[in-house]
């Protein structure tokens, strides 16, 4: 290899080294600064001298207080209470009469500790299971604190239970709560279905934090009968279930966004099968219309998700 080429390559590698060191440097500085701050003398034993009520102690019934798990805050060599609440040396130390104790890190949007700082403590440990996706997610962008959704000092976190999760989500997603109360909706208000069945709440690379790659893939998790591919497809159904359905709830049976026949007539105006205005002339008092009453268009074209019948091109078979 010519010498100048070798030098150029070495120089390149050196630059890469410097770049990687530059990226790494802040982490090192942060860690060193962290080590320099004042932690309490005896860890949790110090904390419990004052904080010994049931709410605090309930942490021992959670996954955060498992001594045999080296990654748990109470695992061997870990920082116990101060793993989440920050260094407590100053807080536990002597203060002059009348002087307020220096605050610890507290959790929740109104706790006084900046949300970013709170979340950094959580993400520090939960990076690979939640933290990577969290960065830049809708919840992160809206400055949601982890503790806004998660209750940590309880044996069972309500947001992790199907029966109670939606109530937590609805604290912010109030419009979705309204929709969940509609007469035709998934069984969320009955506590039998949770939001995380469809949404990846910590963030994902999908639209609307969906649990699967697309809207349809998410719906097929429970409604696999509509996956097909069918011999005769209904194009909008194959593309996006939300073209016709409102998954958060609807005034119409089947969680449809409009009622048939007008829903169908918003796309179809067929030759030889005229798109008639289905008005009061078609009600039982007039000439009861097969296009308006019963299942309207679906009285005949029932296979709206697609048909696998060789004679089913009109979705009637």
């Amino acid at each position: 290899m010519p010498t100048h080429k070798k030098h150029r390559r070495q120089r390149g590698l050196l630059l890469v080294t410097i770049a990687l060191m530059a990226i790494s440097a802040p982490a090192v500085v942060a860690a060193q600064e962290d080590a320099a701050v004042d932690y309490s003398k005896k860890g949790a034993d110090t904390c419990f001298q004052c904080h010994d009520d049931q709410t605090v102690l309930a942490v021992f019934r959670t996954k955060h207080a498992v001594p045999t798990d080296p990654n748990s805050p109470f695992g061997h060599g870990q920082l116990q209470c101060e793993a989440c609440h920050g260094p407590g040396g100053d807080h536990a130390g002597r203060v002059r009469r009348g002087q307020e104790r220096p605050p610890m890190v507290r959790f929740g949007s109104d706790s006084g500790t900046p949300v970013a700082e709170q979340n950094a403590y959580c993400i520090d440990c939960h990076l690979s299971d939640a933290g990577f996706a969290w960065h830049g997610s809708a919840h992160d962008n809206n400055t949601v604190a982890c503790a806004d959704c998660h209750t940590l000092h309880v044996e069972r976190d309500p947001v992790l239970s199907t029966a109670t999760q939606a109530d937590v989500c609805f604290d912010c997603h109030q419009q979705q709560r309204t929709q969940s109360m509609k007469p035709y909706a998934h069984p969320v208000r009955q506590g039998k279905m949770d939001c995380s069945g469809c949404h990846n709440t910590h963030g994902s690379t999908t639209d609307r934090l969906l649990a699967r790659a697309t809207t349809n893939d998410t719906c097929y998790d429970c409604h696999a009968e509509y996956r097909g591919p069918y011999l005769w497809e209904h194009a909008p159904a194959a593309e996006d279930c939300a073209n016709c359905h409102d998954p958060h709830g609807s005034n119409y049976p089947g969680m449809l966004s409009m009622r048939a026949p007008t829903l169908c007539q918003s796309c179809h105006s067929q030759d030889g099968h005229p798109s008639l205005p289905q008005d009061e002339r078609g009600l039982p008092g007039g000439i009861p219309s097969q296009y308006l009453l019963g299942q309207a268009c679906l009285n005949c074209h029932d296979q709206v998700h697609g048909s696998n019948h060789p004679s089913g091109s009109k979705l009637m078979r």
Partner: protein
Amino acid sequence: MHKQTTLFSRTLIAPLVLLAPAISFAQVDTSDWKCESCPFDQGYRAEVDAGVTYVGEDGAIRFGNATGYDDKGAYANVGGQGRYAGDGYRLDWMIEDLGLDSRVFELEGGRQGTFGFRVGYRELPYRRFDTSQTVFNPSSSDTITLPGAWVPAGLTSNMTQLSSSLRKQNIGSDRQIIDIGADWQPGAAFRLFADFRRQNRDGIDITGGSSFTQSALLPRWIDYETDQVDAGIQYGTNRASLTLAYYGSYFTNQNPSLTWDTPFTSAPGAGQYRMAMAPDNDFQQVSLSGAYRATMWDTVVAFTVASGSGEQNELLLPYTVNSGVAASALPRNALDGKVDTANYALTVTSRPLPKGRVKFAYRFDERDNKTPQSTWNRVITDIFLSGDIEQNVPYSFERSTITLSGELVVWKDIRVSAGGERKELKRDFQEVAEQTVDAGWGQVRWRPLTWLDLRVKGGATERDIDRYDETVAISLGQNPLMRKYNLAYRYRSYGELIASITPVDWPVSLGTTVLYADDRYNKSQLGITDSEEVRATVDVNWAISENSSLYLVYGHENIDALQLGSEQFGVWDWSATHEDNFDHIGAGFHWSQPDGKYKLRFDFNRSDGETSIDLFSLSGGESRLPDLTSTLDSARIEASYHWTERLDATLDVRYERFKVDDYTLVSPATIPTVLTLGAQAYDYDVWALGLGIRYHFGAGDITLAD
């Protein structure tokens, strides 16, 4: 060469060495942190609920929707939860509604940080109608027949055996879900996981069975089974994460067809009909996703690459069940349907400024339908040959989205964010082959006081198309002026206000949201042309005392839409104006005695839905359909009395009133050419009274170790 390798190794090792202190966490001397007073979880404890609930009214099957309280009468019920913990091992169980069709059982255990497992079983009842009636009898799971004495007629009003042949037929289904999963962490950075889920759904659904100019709504027996597998391996450090995963879905339908006798007068040989039901299908997907976090600018790069393939090869039914029709041979015995999917995503979030953040996202989704095309010679509703040669159309699409957004703290309490997005859609065989959606939005968030948080957001979205190919519409027999809802040009503008007031020293907090959106389909002559949406919510919470709280929530939704149609297959000659309203009010309080002796919770919800459709047509003038309305009142009182240290007495009272006005639900013979199931609109009052006990096993309060 050796030197090169050494230099290259050093290049990689140097930063890793520097990273090491960060990875090994802060160096804090914890040798004196004995945690001697820590009351770590040990032993077994549980609480078990047992009781009886009496449902006081009949004819309220929909109350049993998702609850299992289908009929009037007494229901014994058991629930509870418990845990064993010791030496790092843990076993949790939970039971809900064991005596009902909505029962849930979950068992979860393992050794935290090493392995875990879970087993779950869940039932979900779906109850639709108990007022429906049918003349059909099941002769097998895929065939329904008429009574022997049935006399066919041309119109429902002439069916002489109708009233004597009707029998009650409830419509609904039950879903059972079994879930088995496990995960194992062989090292600090690796995690293997696998989850198997089997869903069974069986019951009766409604299917419209056409016999050309007439139709009958048929009770259809459903028997579905879906197996799903999620498995993978994850590697994660505090810098990077990588997951390789497999997802499989296998759907089986035990009743892939439905054969029925027509109740109407039919041509000789055309008394029986058959349709195909959902075919068996399977889908498999492999995905690789990962993320890397660099400390420089707090940058996170995340990606997903997924490739999937779905197949459907159910044996096809013949063109017709009618042997009197000289149907041709099928071009293939099974579809050999295949759909390949591809999903790629990349997101980069970074904070190049202390007060500024940017996000870039790219996403690509593809559905490539590789189902072979053949020509088919349709038999119209098992009666006669259409004479047309039709080709099946395997729809495919590609959708790519690029998003760029940023946020900047411009003043100490003001954050400004803005973003833009371009979505491109390419389709096969449809009127619109290429579609772009350009969106832009901005938001100002102002938090002038610690207790006041205001957000104002606004934006616009323009969905444009390369052209609306009217030749495609004409080839499908569609009016060329129609612009399909999901393909039409659309301009949407919207604004949203979100406010949150949480005074620090005040026990009351308030949150409100208001959304307004306006959709214009300016280039549509037929179809939806305008739509307007208003949503508003108000939440009030009042912490009356340490042991009591009260809440009040309100939600309103209004969607108006204008639709144009043509009965003359030309320009518009009728219009429909839709107005959808929905209001919800919820209120409740929670109270407990300071010592927990008595606890009381009350919740009330009222929901009102109303849809009005006003029509105007050149042929019929102005017309208004009856309003479609629904009103739901539900209330629940839950109370408990802490009788002894281990025993609670519980009371659970529920009330629900649901009333629907729906002109489409008509008796079986109302429509001359459609024999319906005669389901009636919901109108019920129901109450349920539950009494029970809750027994606590094991340790109660947590006390510090000596």
